[in-house]
């Protein structure tokens, strides 16, 4: 489903502080896989996710999503593909403060122009699925850690993407919450979603549902077919 061919990402090109975050990375993720990208901090895990997720463009190399090359697409075409293909869960959750849980879940779908009532119904169903039906109207800053985390997952799912991308999802979580989160990811993977997670947390890459581990070091792939 996702394929990168020799991608390189250089920050601050041509300046004294030039920095190559990724070198010639070629990896493939098949549909339905649960892949963990591991490596120490600074190894380029997050950069790889941003490139695969279409949030930034590689300096060279190509990226294919569902057979379509996205690395040279202008932003206005990329966004549509991103909405259909990926749901994002961030390390610090990144919910929008001041908005309710429901509004946070609906926000990614606003530009698609879906009729409001239908979108609202779908978002409510998602919240219900994660046991948050009663908290739909609550502002996100009043939610507990676990609730906020589930709102973040619901938001990632609102456009019904083919894959879920999560960046260091367990970094700030205690044992119980981390386990709950991994359970949710495993369930989604069972329902057919591709899952791509970065982590340097052993709790993540030793999880039962994980099908493959890719290891990065200094911006290059060390091994691409590690087993959990």
């Amino acid at each position: 489903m996702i394929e990168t061919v020799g991608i390189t990402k250089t920050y601050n090109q041509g300046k004294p502080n030039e920095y190559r975050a990724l070198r010639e990375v070629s990896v493939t993720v098949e549909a339905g896989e649960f892949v963990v990208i591991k490596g120490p901090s600074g190894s380029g895990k997050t950069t790889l996710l941003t490139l695969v997720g279409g949030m930034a463009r590689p300096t060279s190399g190509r990226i294919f999503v569902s057979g379509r090359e996205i690395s040279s697409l202008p932003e206005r075409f990329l966004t549509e593909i991103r909405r259909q293909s990926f749901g994002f869960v961030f390390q610090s959750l990144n919910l929008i403060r001041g908005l309710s849980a429901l509004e946070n879940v609906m926000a990614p779908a606003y530009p698609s122009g879906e009729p409001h009532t239908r979108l609202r119904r779908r978002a409510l169903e998602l919240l219900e699925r994660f046991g948050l039906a009663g908290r739909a109207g609550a502002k996100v800053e009043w939610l507990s850690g676990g609730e906020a985390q589930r709102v973040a997952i619901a938001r990632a799912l609102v456009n019904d993407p083919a894959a879920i991308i999560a960046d260091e999802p367990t970094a700030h979580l205690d044992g119980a919450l981390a386990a709950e989160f991994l359970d949710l990811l495993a369930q989604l993977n069972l329902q057919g979603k591709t899952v791509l997670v970065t982590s340097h947390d052993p709790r993540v890459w030793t999880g039962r549902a994980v099908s493959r581990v890719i290891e990065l070091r200094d911006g290059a792939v060390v091994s691409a077919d590690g087993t959990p």
Partner: protein
Amino acid sequence: MILAPNVLALLVASGATALLTALAACHGVGILRHWDLSSGSERQLALERRTYLTSALVGTVLSFELLSLFLFVSSADRIAPLLIGAMCAVGTLQANGYGFATLYLKLALFLLSGLWLVLNHADNLVPDYPLIRPKYLLLLVLAPLSAAEAVLEALFFLRLKPDVITSCCGSLFSSAAGTETDLAALPPRTALIALVAAGAALLLCAFWTARSQRRLAPLLLGAAGTVHFAVALAAIISAVSPYVYELPTHHCPFCLLQREYRYVGYLIYPALLAATVTSVGVGALAVGRAETAAGELPRFRRRLARWTIAAELLFLGIVAACIATSQLTLR
């Protein structure tokens, strides 16, 4: 010099417009010089981001230009009592050499920025920016025009002396020499027949463009749109105005915007401008090499053609209604 509030408002607007167009052109130069779609460099990314700014800027310019076109004419009308001999907008605009020049520039800027937005929309329909060069070259034309408009407009109002004797529309469009007079001297019946013919041709071409995939159809539509615009202006001066005013000698195209005539000009002119921008836009798209846009472009072309049809029907409908309800019969 005339320092009326609406004059100040116009000067503020034309200054702002010139500034925005100049800004858009500056970004356009960067895009023309360094554009390299195959590159993933940070500079290319920055340039692609600038395309968002330029479209927003030109969109704003278009709306400012449309509003200021009407405010300019109505101000000229309001100022007329201050000038001896000027009885309506025409007299004011004639008071010095800059009046009509400013008006024509405003009109040209409106049409060109409308055309630019049509090109821009088509360009954004496909990922490989097929029209990026023609689009930004057009922008480089737009910027000096807009600056010239601001300067001419300022000169026009500065040089306007409230005691100069000017002609009024009665004499401009009836006896004196010049293009406007030639237009007024056009036999009304001929002008109306020409208008109906040009309108029918425009509608036919638009229908054809909306139905067919042939490249000839949009090219013809563009040509028909251009001809129709000229014919329509001539017909408004020579025939439509007298019908609306119910005076065979009154040919002024601006009095249509006045309350006495139920502001009918505020429907006629926007409809005509919309029909012109959409039809000429379709033609320009067919001239520019935008064939790469396989699926999306024909759909956009059909949509534009449908807009042309709607605007033209509105335009012809109002003109017909004006003539039908008029007490006047011209031969």
